[in-house]
């Protein structure tokens, strides 16, 4: 498989994933997008192994490693700060053993784990994940520029 064919396939898979996401939303069923996402990742992984030209080498691996490390360094600080906030909220309530359910409502409100709360938590998780992806892409671009990814010379096509 040619390198450009692989990139074309990756684009098609990404578009298909967007379509299946909206299908899942309209069906109100998360299974299609979850299955499609895993299948898409496996398909791209298998396709990448069939690319005959070199698309990864030690320099691209180094760029990837550096970007991933910087993303991790920033992300853990963000996650830790948010977790600290959650811990403060948790410890602001009365400590000790949780009273038997249903228990006094003011100590552990029964509506705390209802579906809208889970939905909000999922959106919050997705926001953090998107933030990580943006960070990674930003660092990837920075290191790619630093190590000559888009440099041109007289041999440039």
């Amino acid at each position: 498989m040619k390198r450009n064919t692989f990139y074309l396939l990756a684009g098609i898979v990404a578009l298909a994933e967007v379509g299946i996401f909206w299908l899942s939303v309209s069906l109100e069923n998360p299974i299609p997008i979850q299955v499609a996402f895993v299948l898409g990742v496996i398909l791209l992984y298998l396709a990448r192994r069939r690319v005959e030209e070199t698309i990864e080498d030690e320099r691209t691996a180094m760029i990837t490693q550096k970007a991933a490390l910087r993303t991790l360094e920033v992300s853990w600080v963000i996650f830790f700060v948010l977790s600290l906030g959650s811990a403060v909220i948790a410890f602001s309530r009365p400590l000790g053993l949780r009273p038997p359910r249903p228990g006094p409502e003011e100590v552990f409100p029964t509506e705390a784990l209802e579906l809208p709360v889970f939905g909000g938590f999922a959106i919050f998780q997705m926001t953090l994940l998107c933030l990580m992806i943006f960070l990674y892409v930003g660092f990837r671009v920075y290191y790619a520029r630093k190590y000559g990814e888009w440099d041109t010379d007289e041999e440039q096509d």
Partner: protein
Amino acid sequence: MENGIPMKNRIKVYRAMHNLTQEALANAVGVTRQTILAIEKGKYDPSLELAFKIARYFGAPIEEIFLYDEPV
């Protein structure tokens, strides 16, 4: 480059001597053309393995192609 020690190389000269494109050299040593370009421009120092591969491809000692300017 990474630690500020200037590493120079003569890959471009050797390519010209062998009438070789960056793409051909990249294919021969198993890297991308951008990596050869980055090495030539001094933006990336190759691993020891890649440096040996390039030197052996040109049939020259490694120190003929890669020059290490140790700071005095």
